[in-house]
């Protein structure tokens, strides 16, 4: 909560600083600004000043909920979130500074097969799974800033940083109390090849840590739990769990190129390598497992803007490869009592994700800072190929997803009503899950992995209806208050899944 107070104080302080802001920052204008901010989306803070920056701030608080049986086994059957988010941009002398703070409290109902990690989908397969579906209570804080200098000759410099902290508690034996943080720093530079051509480079370093301390409240009942090793391979245990300590580092960087002419061309290439170790216990630590994640992403965006229309065509390719590394360890029970000794380590599993997407949007502008309508189309191809090497098991899926959407900005006097509709269809192209290891009757195989595969290989249709109503406030009517809501419905086909609904509402203000 202390962090929340600090963020709100910062936000309040920023209100005064934005008193001289000129354009009215309606929700539609806010979306348009984000669409134009190609440098900001690339992750290179040095390019922020090339995104036509201006002073703005937003504060909103909201509530979201979800329910329905179309979910991965480790997701909650239902749940809700309370959200507070702020973000803003400001000129400090000739530098431009952006920042954001998000707080989210989430109550997850009846999540299964997870007793050791706040986010079981963050690319860490080595977790503890127990047999009791349980509620989780989680809190998440995200603090982020980016600052860009003006051009010094041909050079612009920038620095970005983020701090994410989460805590989570499982509410049923085996219980766990988890604390997570991720700290990242991103220095960047942009070089002007010509007045209309810029080349950017940024580096990225991040450090991650998550601690999970498990225990039973009912100490008379020892719980069966499983140490997951990937794709159904698991070691069965009995008791109250253990202490898991995850620590990771990552290095990466990005290259960007922008050409501005009749149209804007933006190219980017990012690479990231991450290693995260799992150490079991603090008292007599044992190497549990490690992962080595390597990901790269390439994208091209073309934007063409006239006084009436803004066209954006984007293509993106993403590839992530994770090596799952297991250790062979043995306890030293000799006189030297060296604790756990690591005798060898091997890559035992690989997890590969490949994505390619194409997005097109057209915006009917209203003036330069607002829009009247927009339409978009996107198509995405996604392939997952996970393997346990020896004994060989695999889980593979290939999906194609297309989505069309539209939004209309209705003017109601000085107020605006933004109504949208998105519809998508996912088609599974191929897939399979085959487990060839020991203990095929473990629920980790028959329920967790099998149902996870079924979710990932499901066809579904999805529709979402977002609505935002906004109106000016303040004496000069330059600030905007808004209320938004959305409802989403996903209908699954096959495997016994039915649907998932998501809905939410928020109230906020743009300054």
């Amino acid at each position, binding site marked *: 909560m202390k962090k929340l107070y600090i963020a709100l104080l910062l936000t309040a302080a920023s209100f005064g600083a934005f008193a001289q802001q000129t354009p009215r920052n309606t929700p539609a204008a806010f979306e348009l600004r984000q669409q134009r901010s190609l440098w900001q989306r690339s992750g290179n803070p040095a390019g922020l000043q090339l995104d036509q920056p201006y002073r703005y701030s937003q504060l909103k608080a909201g509530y979201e909920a979800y329910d329905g049986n179309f979910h991965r086994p480790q997701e909650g059957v239902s749940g809700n979130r309370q959200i507070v988010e702020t973000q803003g941009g400001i000129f400090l002398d000739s530098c431009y500074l952006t920042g954001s703070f998000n707080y989210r409290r989430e109550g997850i109902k009846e999540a299964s097969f997870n007793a050791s990690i706040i986010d079981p989908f963050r690319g860490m397969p080595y977790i503890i799974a127990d047999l009791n579906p349980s509620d989780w209570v989680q809190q998440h804080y995200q603090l982020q800033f980016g600052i860009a200098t003006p051009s010094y000759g041909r050079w612009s410099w920038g620095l970005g940083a983020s701090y994410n902290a989460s805590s989570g508690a499982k509410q049923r034996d085996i219980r766990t109390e988890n604390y997570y943080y991720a700290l990242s720093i991103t220095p960047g530079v942009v070089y002007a090849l010509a007045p209309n051509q810029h080349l950017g480079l940024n580096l990225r*370093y991040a*450090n991650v840590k998550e601690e999970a301390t498990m225990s039973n409240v009912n100490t008379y009942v020892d719980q069966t739990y499983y140490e997951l090793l990937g794709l159904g391979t698991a070691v069965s245990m009995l008791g109250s769990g253990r202490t898991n300590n995850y620590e990771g580092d990552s*290095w990466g960087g990005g290259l960007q190129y922008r050409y501005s002419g009749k149209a804007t061309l933006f190219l980017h290439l990012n690479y990231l390598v991450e290693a995260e170790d799992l150490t079991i216990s603090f008292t007599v630590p044992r190497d549990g497992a*490690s992962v080595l994640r390597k990901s790269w992403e390439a994208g091209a965006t073309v934007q063409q803007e006239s006084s009436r229309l803004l066209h954006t065509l984007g293509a993106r390719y993403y590839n992530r490869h994770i090596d799952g590394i297991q250790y062979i360890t043995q306890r030293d029970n000799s*006189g030297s009592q060296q604790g756990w000794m690591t*005798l060898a380590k*091997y890559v035992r599993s690989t997890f590969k994700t490949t994505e390619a997407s194409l997005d097109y949007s057209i915006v009917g502008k209203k003036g330069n800072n607002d829009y009247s309508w927009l339409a978009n189309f996107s198509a995405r191809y996604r392939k997952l190929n996970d393997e346990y090497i020896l004994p060989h098991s695999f889980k593979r899926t290939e999906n194609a997803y297309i989505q069309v959407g539209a939004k209309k900005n209705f003017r109601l006097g000085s107020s605006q009503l933004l109504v949208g509709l998105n519809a998508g269809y996912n088609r599974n192209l191929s897939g399979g899950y085959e487990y060839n290891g020991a203990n095929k009757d473990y629920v980790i195989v028959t329920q967790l992995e099998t149902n996870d595969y079924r979710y990932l290989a499901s066809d579904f249709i999805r529709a979402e209806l977002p609505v935002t109503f906004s109106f000016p406030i303040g004496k000069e009517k330059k600030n905007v208050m808004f209320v938004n809501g959305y409802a989403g419905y996903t209908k699954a086909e096959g495997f016994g899944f039915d649907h998932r609904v998501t809905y939410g509402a928020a109230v906020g203000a743009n300054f």
Partner: protein
Amino acid sequence: MKYSIIALVILCSACSRIDNAREAEEIRPYSITVKANSVVPEITSTAGLKVVFENFAEGFRLERTLGTGATAIDSLIPGIYSINISGRAQAPGGDVYYLNGAKINYAVTANAGTVEIDVDGLKVSPLVFTEIFFAGTTPFYFRNQFYEVYNNSDQTIYLDGLCFANLTPTTATTNLPLWPAEDGADYAYAERIWKVPGNGTEYPLLPGESFVMSQFAANHQLPQYNPASPVDCSSSEFEFNMDNPNFPDQPAVDMQHVFYNGNASKGTLPQYLTSVFGGAYVIFRVPPGETYDPVNNPALKTRNLASTSTTQYAKIPIRYVLDAVEAGNNQNSINAKRVPSVLDAGMTYVGATYNSQGVARKVSDITNPDGTPVFIDTNNSTDDFERGVVPQFRRHGSKMPAWNHTN
């Protein structure tokens, strides 16, 4: 300067973690050469013996037959293995020996390695544990634990003076104690020892008969105890009476207490509870002409040198041991074996606590002339016991001794 040093430390740490992960090689099957050395002078060849590699954590098992000399075993997944060699071998004179040898927690981490294992003529015990119930019954009822021992020989055996002990650590753990180096591999280490009373001929056990030692030899299915209990222990031959007035002495004969924490007295615990996760149990007999007094002989007791605890444990010479069974939480606990492999090369389990399930020794194809069974005894509890059975007394037609108090 200070910040530069901090940045440098962070940089080095990050690079080290990533480099460490990058050094891991992709797993591939290894080959290992096994050489079995017979320590039975009459047996010179170990060809034809069965060798079993078991990686319990991963549920991987590989079985091969040894050839002449060294035998190459391929397709092994790197890991921690229990390696067992067993089988019959015929000496040139015609005598048939059952040979057995093992290595526990052997790390296969290199390709083309060699492992040598001594195989010895198996000591066939006339007395064997045939049924053990340690897990208790929900909710948290543990007083119905019992241990059944069977005469698997063709001779009458007098139980008088037979000792029963549970070994330490009481629950399977990878954090094993450290014992005096001079002990070598000659001892097992007991937390508590009991003895069958008698003058030497009071408690005969005929071939095909078994006797039961219960924690509390009552009918546990009575309302005041636990009607859900799978067993009525009131027909037990012996009980471990800890003088608890709430669980009064039963008609079964009381076992005689021998040793606990360096003393002959029972201590203050209100019951003799062994781990509901599964303990390690031995029966042993002191050879005629020898004296065994771990209470008064300092050479027969020791503390765990790996800890600061002053708790004393009794040393049981391995040559005294007739049978040993090790039980643990589940199949993965074998990585935490407490019992020397020469006594029990495996481990048995029921997979949960308070589930009213026990373990029972398997019967062989052979029966005694009176139809009573002959039980399998290969000194490997993993293979010799059925797991997760509903416990019962005198399974498979084992007989009750005539001196049982119910007769």
